[in-house]
């Protein structure tokens, strides 16, 4: 059900962009919507992160995944049971850059009636790595439209990404990877009964939306070439708040741009916020040194306790009878 709703939504959005283009409202598609989307993205993004930051971390709750630092002759695990900030940074960096927890993923199977079998399951990790890294590199490549002069590193990345163009004309490696990984991420949600069961319409929607962006991008690369110099002029104008309409571009460019705008606008109100969220995750960004450094709870308040005096008063006779020491005789 979720799939059809999402697919339908994306198709409707596609037709909206075609319709608006058909009417000729280029400035809406090319200027107003992108500006609004960016405004929504920036303010929404900051607002959400600030809202998280506004709630304190009352308790020290890292998920410890390695030997603690205790006795000096026991080798402790400095990454999975980080004792220092350096350890935490390493743990977070490996998590963010290489999805380390996902790499640990395993699949449990019920072999025979009562026999469990654990198998490494790295497909999701592979798919996620391929998708996220491709997306990052593609975004990075797009910097050439927004920076003048184009930094050398952007050019180098672009060159590296196109290294197989002798074999696959005109397509970047990341273009192919992102399409394959998106297909994988989409179909695993549709095919695996467990994943389908937990999926919400929005889970399919983001995949389809990003797929729309990737496909329109690839189409422009292969068939509906846009005048890149003109695109850059438009992009720079947008950046300098002197917007002009892009020249020498067609419908596919506008669809691409519309979907990108939608993605940016949708970002802060969606699960895509996992991107900044991981940095703030208290089970991953704290040291396992809570017996060594006191963690303060800002909303800590006195609670009603049963004091020793009250306890002694209640059990005085019994305590006396068995000859245990009393504070008050």
């Amino acid at each position, binding site marked *: 059900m979720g799939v059809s709703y999402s697919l339908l939504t994306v198709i409707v959005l596609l037709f909206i962009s075609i319709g608006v283009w058909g009417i000729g409202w280029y400035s809406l598609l090319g200027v107003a919507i992108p500006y609004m989307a960016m405004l929504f993205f920036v303010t929404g993004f900051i607002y959400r992160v600030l809202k998280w930051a506004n709630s304190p971390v009352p308790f020290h709750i890292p998920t410890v995944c390695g030997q603690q630092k205790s006795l000096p002759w026991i080798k402790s695990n400095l990454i999975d049971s980080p004792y220092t900030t350096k350890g935490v940074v390493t743990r977070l960096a490996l998590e963010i850059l290489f999805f380390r927890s*996902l790499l640990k*993923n395993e699949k449990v199977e019920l072999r025979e009636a009562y026999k*469990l079998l654990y198998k490494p399951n790295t497909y*999701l990790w592979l798919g996620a790595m391929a998708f996220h890294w491709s997306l990052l590199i593609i975004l990075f490549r797009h910097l050439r439209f927004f920076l003048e002069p184009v930094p050398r590193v952007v050019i180098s990345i672009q060159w590296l990404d196109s290294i197989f163009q002798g074999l696959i004309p005109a397509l970047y490696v990341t273009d192919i990877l992102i399409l394959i990984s998106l297909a994988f991420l989409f179909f695993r949600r549709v095919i695996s009964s467990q994943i389908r*069961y937990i999926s919400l319409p929005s889970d399919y929607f983001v995949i389809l939306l990003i797929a729309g962006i990737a496909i329109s991008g690839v189409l422009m690369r292969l068939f509906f070439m846009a005048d890149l110099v003109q695109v850059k002029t438009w992009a720079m104008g947008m950046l300098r708040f002197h917007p002009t309409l892009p020249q020498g571009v067609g419908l596919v460019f506008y669809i691409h741009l519309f979907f990108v705008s939608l993605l940016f606008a949708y970002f802060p109100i969606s699960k895509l916020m996992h991107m900044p969220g991981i940095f703030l995750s208290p089970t991953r960004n704290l040291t396992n040194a809570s017996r060594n450094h*006191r963690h303060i709870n800002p909303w800590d308040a006195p609670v009603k*306790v049963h004091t020793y005096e009250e306890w002694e008063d209640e059990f005085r006779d019994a*305590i006396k009878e068995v000859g245990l020491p009393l504070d008050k005789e």
Partner: protein
Amino acid sequence: MPEERISIDLTPPTKSWMEPTVKFRKGTYCYSAVPKHQKYLDLPYPREWNPAEEDWKLPEHWKEIILKGMKDLLGQYRSFKLFLDICVRCGACADKCHFFIGSGDPKNMPVLRAELLRSVYRRYFTSSGKILGRLAGARELTEEVLKEWFYYFFQCTECRRCSVFCPYGIDTCEITMMGRELLNLVGCNINWVVEPASNCYRTGNHLGVPPHAFKSTLEFAVEEVKEITGIKVEATINRKGAEVLFISPSADYFGNPHWFTFLGYLMLFHEIGLDYTWSAYASEGGNFGLFHSSELAKRLNAKIYAEAKRLGVKWILGGECGHMWRVLHQYMDTYNGPADFLEEPVSPITGTHFDNAKSTKMVHICEFTADLIKNNKLKLDPSRNDKWKVTYHDSCNPSRGMGLFEEPRYILHHAGNYFYDMPENTIKERTFCCGSGAGLGADENMEIRLRGGFPRANAVKYVHEKFGVNLLTCVCAIDKATLPPLLEYWVPGVEVAGIHELVGNALVMSGEKERTTDLRGEPLTKFQVIS
């Protein structure tokens, strides 16, 4: 025990999870908290009610109460807010939960357990949920949904295994804690949590053992040690001026097989001449308050520092217990610190500074004993444990809440000759829960306990069949109470013991008589080793 053999099917149903459909079937849920105990702790809306009945006698404005509570918690806990917002439903956690593996109930997948709260959060706290409703995964808060919360948040043992595999570290334990905090607001908790907490608040321990009974049970243990070893060990209660205060879970001095670990402590402390005392006021290391609310956890935990201060000890040593150590390691200093009236823990026997406990001033007995063994302060005869082929169950909390992996193994390697670890996927940070933690060790929910404990038992079965393992050791009082029936059901022939029971067996005490039995009173089979 269930009459029919439990059957397991992991295929999800066709009906969407968004329809709340909870059936309170016998064997799957715990009884509600008794009003007497609710009242003793001043908890809201104490009443007689039965989860299996239609009418839960909820307070009139229950919905407003819950939503207000949710708003408060969102403001208090970043974890809560963040974990509700950032899940992408990738499914990595789905088959990591022992309750899911053992029951096949999709709402036991950590992701869906959290969605139970998330769906309500979306409906009342996010604009997309308010506008798009069900399409955005939002649900109205109805009585049916509340019942579902009760069912599933008391079908999570807060073991945190899912959190290891989540790419964002989303911790279902936090979600369940929040879910329970909310249920508390309308007086819906279970008796197996509230009664021990109330007992502990009044008498000092979960079992409700009053000081005189505590003294006689300790005397009884001293007698028993004398029978086995010929040595009369010293054990004092509430003694001021001792160097160390020793705190262990109350099950240690009342439960079986905890008792033998208790004997082990007494023998060990006597042999090394530790200047220590027990306390009858702080006679509980465990903290069932943790399974209720952070406030109740803090109220119960307060006794430990208060008593250490009153007795004037230098530092505190803690016995074998799981969630007790989650509290001591991750919460106590925050709840009731700073313990500036105590000194940094130093072992009086070896002179080792426990640098890792500089602030909390509380040392785990496995850290303490491992240090003694490393410094050759103990004479151990591991062959006295030769009848046991031993494996070790990493209890959830000391593992994922602390990182206590090598200390107990080091002790086991020295206290016995035969040690075999279970498969890597089921130990250390990936350890499986006994299925009965977080207050779920009641009798009435035995079926779900056996289901939840199935992955653990299955790994035990593996080493039982492969190496002939016949003893499962652990450092958790709940484990010691709940693993025996679990193993009896899934893998008969394997017994359960604490680490310090084996230490007590192996410990050669100066001046002891020749031992003829182990701590269980069973004949020592020292010379019948077959391997």
